[in-house]
């Protein structure tokens, strides 16, 4: 759709003979390329629809949504507070560490290190950390803080880099790197850093909720139980609580109160069991290596890795890539279509309703969307793709809508559909494209958690390996997933550069979410 509209625009503007539509239009080339590639890959995506009779179950879900209900309010309050505590402490730690890493981000080794820690999904970090720290506060906090530190490092480095270098030249040459950053770059970058951290905090709240799925005492803990066991009123209540938490952020997240919140959060965190060095050592030295290696059988070990590569890793990695690419294109199309509902120039006073709708789309765990879609279209990759596209277009649509609010309006602006297609969309499209390319690796990580559909992505196998207590295989899969992430990230960066989309643009756009 995005490509179509762009093509339409391009065609209507001028169509002299022998005019090459694609020449000098890198965005169009990229959009067209992705679109065609996604179309070509569709046959491999396994999109069969099965007839089903979802009426009864969907009715129960709908009824649950409008009759939220809970049985133990203190427990809900505690879960809500712990969701915030995990997110808050994790963000504080990762901001500090991320800032430190951002200062030395020019070193290649640091960049690679950051790319690899953020390439592993929070859930997988939690599963790994759980082997060492058990189900404890440490596991939950680190599972969020580690990948987020990698993300912060990258984004902060980009923000700091963009600041004017002039003030720095005014300093004595002998001043240290840290003082230089602290006194010249940081003050300039401060508003952006604060805005980005705020945005990440919202993401951390969602991550913290999702960690409940594997046993940490956040909202997700109760949500997963209630939802899977068909207690839809309870599940809905928890989901509404999460929506309210995120929607109310601006009313309670004040910079001055954060130190106080952090102290309270530490106090609220669940107890952590003492870490036993012996188990940690056993995990590092023993559990994560194939049995044959421990027996000193080198050739068998090579064979094991080889067979894993052929039977599981390559097919799963390929399939993950295919699904994520199609989901990405679908997300782009959907985001282009839905952003107007939250855009002030387009939706006018009704934009706040659109905001609410997009907040729900981006805050509803994909698992829920996938389950509902599974009931409707039966088991295939289709529910997975739709769930990913809906969730991510909710997020991107929201960011794009915010950006559209800040566009200068012409006095003679047209209205309605014309305003959408000839004025606003063309202006924010580069931004949307940047966000999409930014989001690709995230979408790929998220294909992981759709195992209920029997969709055999890398994440499905990681989950299986942990369930079967095969940490050797789990580790191998996590490493491959991380490598794939790094590769996609690299490719997306090259594509952005080719399109002349500034790296920082995506960051900037996320930054507009301030206030």
């Amino acid at each position, binding site marked *: 759709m995005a490509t179509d509209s762009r093509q339409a625009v391009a065609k209507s503007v001028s169509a002299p003979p022998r005019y090459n539509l694609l020449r000098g239009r890198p965005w169009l080339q990229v959009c067209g390329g992705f679109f065609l590639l996604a179309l070509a890959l569709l046959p491999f995506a396994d999109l069969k629809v099965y007839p089903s*009779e979802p009426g009864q179950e969907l009715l129960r879900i709908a009824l649950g949504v409008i009759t939220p209900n809970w049985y133990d309010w203190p427990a809900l309050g505690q879960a809500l507070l712990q969701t915030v505590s995990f997110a808050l402490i994790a963000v504080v730690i990762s901001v500090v560490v991320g800032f*430190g890493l951002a200062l030395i981000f020019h070193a290649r080794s640091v960049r690679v290190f950051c790319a690899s820690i953020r390439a592993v999904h929070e859930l997988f970090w939690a599963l790994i950390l759980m082997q060492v720290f058990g189900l404890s506060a440490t596991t939950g906090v680190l599972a969020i803080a580690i990948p987020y530190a990698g993300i912060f490092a990258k984004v902060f480095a980009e923000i700091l880099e963009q600041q004017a270098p002039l003030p720095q030249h005014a300093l004595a040459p002998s001043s240290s790197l840290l003082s230089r950053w602290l006194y010249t770059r940081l003050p300039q970058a401060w508003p952006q850093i604060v805005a980005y951290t705020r945005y990440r905090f919202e993401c951390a709240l969602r991550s913290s909720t999702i960690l409940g799925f594997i046993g940490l*005492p956040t909202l997700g803990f109760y949500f997963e139980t209630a939802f*899977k*066991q*068909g207690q839809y009123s309870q599940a809905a209540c928890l989901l509404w609580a999460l929506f309210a938490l995120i929607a109310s952020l601006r009313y309670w997240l004040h910079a001055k109160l954060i130190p106080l919140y952090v102290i309270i959060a530490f106090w609220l965190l669940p107890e*952590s069991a*003492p870490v036993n060095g012996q188990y940690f050592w056993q995990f590092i030295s023993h559990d994560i290596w194939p049995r044959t290696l421990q027996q000193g059988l080198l050739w068998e070990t090579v064979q094991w890795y080889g067979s894993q590569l052929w039977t599981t890793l390559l097919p799963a990695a390929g399939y993950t890539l295919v699904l994520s690419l199609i989901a990405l294109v679908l997300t782009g199309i959907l985001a282009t279509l839905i952003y107007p509902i939250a855009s002030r120039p387009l939706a006018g006073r009704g934009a706040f309703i659109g905001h609410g709708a997009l907040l729900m789309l981006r805050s509803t765990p994909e698992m829920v969307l996938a389950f509902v879609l599974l009931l409707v279209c039966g088991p295939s990759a289709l529910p997975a793709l739709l769930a990913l596209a809906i969730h991510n277009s909710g997020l991107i649509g929201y960011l794009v809508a915010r950006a559209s609010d800040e566009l200068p309006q012409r006095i003679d602006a047209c209205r309605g559909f014309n305003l959408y297609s000839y004025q606003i969309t063309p202006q924010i499209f580069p931004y949307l494209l940047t966000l999409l390319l930014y989001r690709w690796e995230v979408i790929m990580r998220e294909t992981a958690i759709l195992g*209920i559909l029997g969709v055999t992505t890398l994440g499905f196998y990681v989950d299986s390996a942990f369930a079967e207590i095969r940490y050797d295989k789990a580790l191998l899969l996590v490493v491959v997933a991380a490598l794939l992430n790094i590769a996609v990230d690299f490719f997306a960066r090259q594509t952005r550069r080719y399109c002349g989309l500034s790296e920082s643009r995506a960051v900037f756009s996320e930054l507009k979410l301030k206030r």
Partner: protein
Amino acid sequence: MKQLRLLTALAAIFTLLLSLQATAATFTFTAIPDEDESRLVERFNRVAAYLEFELGVPVKYIPVKSYAAAITAFRNNQVQLAWFGGLSGVQARLAVPNSQAIAQGYEDQFFKTYFIAHKNANVEPSTEFPKAIAGKTFTFGSKGSTSGRLMPEFYIRENLKQSPQEAFERVGFSGDHSATIAQVQSGAYQVGAVNYLVWETELAAGKVDPSKVKVIWETPNYPDYQWTLRGDADQVYGKGFTKKLRNALLNMKDKSLLKAFPRKSFVAAKNDDYKAIEDTARAIDLLQ
């Protein structure tokens, strides 16, 4: 480099603060019931209170979400006692040498799995394994479940001579017995495997529409859930602790406590009772 060291120190302090809230050594257990996981903490805190009274040591319950998490907690000595499924118990006892199964539910001596099918699957109930399910869409429960994964997969392989992935058009893992029923009832999956107790409960509660989904086959009996205790319990909690614990479990007669599991009562069990489960798991390569 000085700044880096400062940052590392800061990070270390945070981690330290987190781990300082360590608990005193108490007797800790965990349990995942096979149905109705709501009010987990409330229900099992009462079981903890009962055990505390019977054993004379502080007893604590911690909730977990998955068998894998329960096994990890057991191996890392975060819990000393756990209510495991058949397969997870075997895995846990392999991970912790000398640990032992000490009691099982009355119903767990002769547990079974129901194969259920949506009416559109056109498979009739039978006493023989329904080979007509080949080529349909099929969902297991959770990946590490005995009744929702291990036993059904074993009988599928034995009777269809193929792995589930080969035998069925599509294989899913619903993650939960209730979810399996919901997905087969809606026709999202045509056939599924479900814990028989969960099916009976949901049927009695009117959550199952018999005109849409029915039981087409039941597996032969096998042993399932059991209490497994770490082998070093007697050294840590005093001589005779294991025996005392077993007696406390076997003498748990209060219906409201037993309802948490939910079981009629507990009977004695030993590791050998689960030899068949272990062999089955090895046969289908679920255990290394």
